């Protein structure tokens, strides 16, 4: 077992891990941050995306020991300081960008990473960036819309009535 320390969502965190412990397991099992989900075992689905030192990382594909000393942000750390939904989170709710919610943490984290590097992405760029995030419920349509809206671009309102 190795003792590791890192900063998670702005707070110091530590724990004893095996060499084989994945960052996703450390977050879920040790730190009880169960917002990070695991939906596959081949690093395809993206439900486990977190930010490590500002970069989007699939937490199922990184060893916990590799993240020692890093700044880690999970979906639990994405809301505004007063607890209200951040711009991206609010856009997902406003545009019905989630259904069962299981892929949602990864989608939110990927969206945040995309908008950091590309603040006004085109629709094609959003779709291309989401290559590593699988959603089975929404057909992606409203996820793409939510991300475009969160970037400040005009999109059609929800549900033409």
């Amino acid at each position, binding site marked *: 077992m190795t003792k590791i320390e890192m900063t998670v969502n702005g707070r110091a965190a530590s724990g004893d891990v095996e060499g084989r412990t994945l960052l996703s397991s450390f977050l*879920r099992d040790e730190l009880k941050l169960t*917002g990070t989900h695991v939906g596959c075992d081949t690093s395809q689905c993206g439900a486990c995306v977190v930010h490590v030192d500002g970069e989007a990382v699939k937490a199922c594909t990184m060893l916990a020991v590799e993240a020692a000393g890093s700044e880690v942000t999970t979906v639990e750390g994405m809301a505004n300081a007063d607890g209200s939904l951040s711009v991206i989170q609010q856009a997902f*709710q406003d545009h019905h960008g989630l259904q*069962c919610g*299981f892929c949602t943490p990864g989608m*939110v984290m990927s969206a945040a990473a995309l908008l950091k590097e590309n603040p006004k992405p085109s629709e094609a760029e959003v779709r*291309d960036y989401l290559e590593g995030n699988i959603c*089975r*419920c929404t057909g992606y349509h409203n996820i793409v819309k939510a991300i475009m809206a969160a970037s400040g671009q005009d999109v059609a309102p929800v*549900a033409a009535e």
Partner: protein
Amino acid sequence: MPKDGGIGASSKRREDVRFLTGTGNYTDDINIHGQAHVFFLRSDIAHGTITSVDTGAAEGMPGVVKVFTGADFEAVGGMPCGWQVTDKHGQPMQEPKHPILAHGKVRHVGEPIAAVVADTLEQARDAAEAIVVDIDELPAVVDMKAAVASDDVKVHDDLTSNLCYDWGFVEENKDATDAAFEAAAHVTTLELVNNRLVANPMEPRVAVGDYARGTDESTLYTTSQNPHVIRLLMGAFVLGIPEHKLRVVAPDVGGGFGTKIFHYQEEAFCTFAAKACNRAVKWTSSRSEAFMSDAHGRDHVTKIELALDGDNNFTAVRTETYANMGAYLSTFAPSIPTWLHGTLMAGNYKTPLIYVNVKAVFTNTVPVDAYRGAGRPEATFQLERVIDKAARELGVDPVELRRQNFITEFPYATPVAVEYDTGDYHATMDKVLEISDRDGFAARRAESEAKGKLRGFGINCFIEACGIAPSNLVGQLGARAGLYESATVRVNATGGLVVMTGSHSHGQGHETSFAQVVADMIGIDENMVEIVHGDTSKTPMGMGTYGSRSIAVGGSAMVRATEKIIAKAKKIASHLLEASESDIELKDGAFSVAGTDKSVAWGDVTLAAYVPHNYPLEDIEPGLEETAFYDPSNFTYPAGAYTCEVEVDPATGEVTIERFASADDFGNVVNPMIVEGQVHGGIAQGIGQALLENCSYDENGQLLTASYMDYTMPRADNLPQMDHYVVDHSCQTPCTHNPLGVKGCGEAGAIGSPPTVINAIIDALQSGGHDVAHIDMPATPARVWAAMHG
């Protein structure tokens, strides 16, 4: 004007806040103090005789609590099947034993042979590697027609053959149907495959069994669409636990799409092992395990024939389908290719004679059961493909051929045992042609051709049957369960309501839309209504969520219970207002006396119910809580028309979806935003089936697609761009037999879209001079290219 609350409003989903902040409560998030973990050792051989399972070394490994094999389950029942189909000779289907852990033989790759319970998952997995299993491998049978043609390889030695049943529907119509084909002016024939799919909800299945020795109570936390059904099946038929000693909880569930309806071995195992080990036992499926243990979907091989008279009227439809059951009967498997498939073969058309033959077949593959649409996509695909082929053979417009055969008068009794209550198929056709801009297609095709691409326009109509019912009828058809739904409405003293429903939400947003309905009925704010679901200890007996039944059946139960609440509240109000009950009106959350300015607020009435000082105690009980069970008198029949435009790259065979439009008739709509989201999701799954997804086995029964590296899930860039994608639900013919006039929307997209896409691809290929009459799904670049080049 968009409504800002109640029925018809696009209320934002309240459940989103917890999902967006990582504070949902999915089954894998549940950890019980002292819990152990189980790892299942699964067969990597498709068919063989187990000669020994040596667990000795594993039992001595660090952290191991107990190792289980099939022998440990001899005293309990096997996995039950919930539907008995009767074959065309009047005989019951063949129903094999389905053990919790393999006993004697293994019959598919992924079948659990042994289970190791240990302190940690890693210890359980390590110990499983020390189990020595000897299996005498037998030849496997994977191909359905081969499985029926010969008994050389039998999946179940104690059955007479690999044929589960040979079903004819309607058997009495067979001779007349055959005669209609003899007399036909034109017959179109099509042989096709409806590809095997894996539902793939993003949350893998999880089961946590817990046991309280002091009270002898078992609890199962599970990723289920219908916790009460699991409680009944597992308690009564598998483990022998009475329902009052068994609680089943399905908390936040990350998608289902059918595959989380069924009762699985892992659920029974964890419940059993928790008692045997006297500590909680947890199992979390990996994605690879999910591919070889979640029930698969579709997998039909069909020949369909359509007979037409000299005026192009449909005179008869005749089909022969081989439906894969896999190695064992999953919970509702036998009903899918029969009562959810044969009954839909009329489609939207007034074909007078229909005969459907279905041969359900055992093979050495994972069990096959309901997947989004369940039987109805298979029916729609073959019918709409053969109609499209007929239009091409006859040289007529596929739209006009459909229109001239549309059912136009309702109610309409089909020759396949169902009666459509309402519909307007011309309206949805008109709408989809408008929103898809069919008139502009020729110009768009010319643009594509200028780029060296082939462009095709596909049209498709569909009908589905949702809210399967009524219970006494489906009982005659072989269902071993009722198909009602329940709701309890509990009004608190201060006026807030808690609605406990037997429906289960795993992405559908019931916590929002169900609250809209109840709030609308009383005229109060939606936030005064809380929806509780997914826990057998909190909700009345319910049948759960599948077959687009939640709002049509569960919603109706909720309406009935709320009506009882309102009736009692009016009695209380009439007492408080000293007026006749018949003069009391409820509007905007207040009771008033008709024609006067006397009124009393909702909260005053609810308070009186619980503080009954000024209260008609001699007439009614205190309190305000009512339960209703709703058993529908008929299915609901959502219908629609879809169009798709594809571009085919003739150099590579790659197909892209350029435009897509759907016009659905769901009857009345409670939350348009949620409804459109359901359609988007269904269409994505349908496009996935048409272009990308395929679950494939080799001839030895090895599963070739057991991860997302091999099984192609639709990604964001496989779907049409926003500007070229319209989903419409403005054509509404309300259901006539449920109180909300709703029909259900969960499966429509997955039913309507696959033939739309394939019809468009055929149109594109034929426009390029390629004589391609059909292409099987998924229409991968390799398949399309091969079809173009003969």
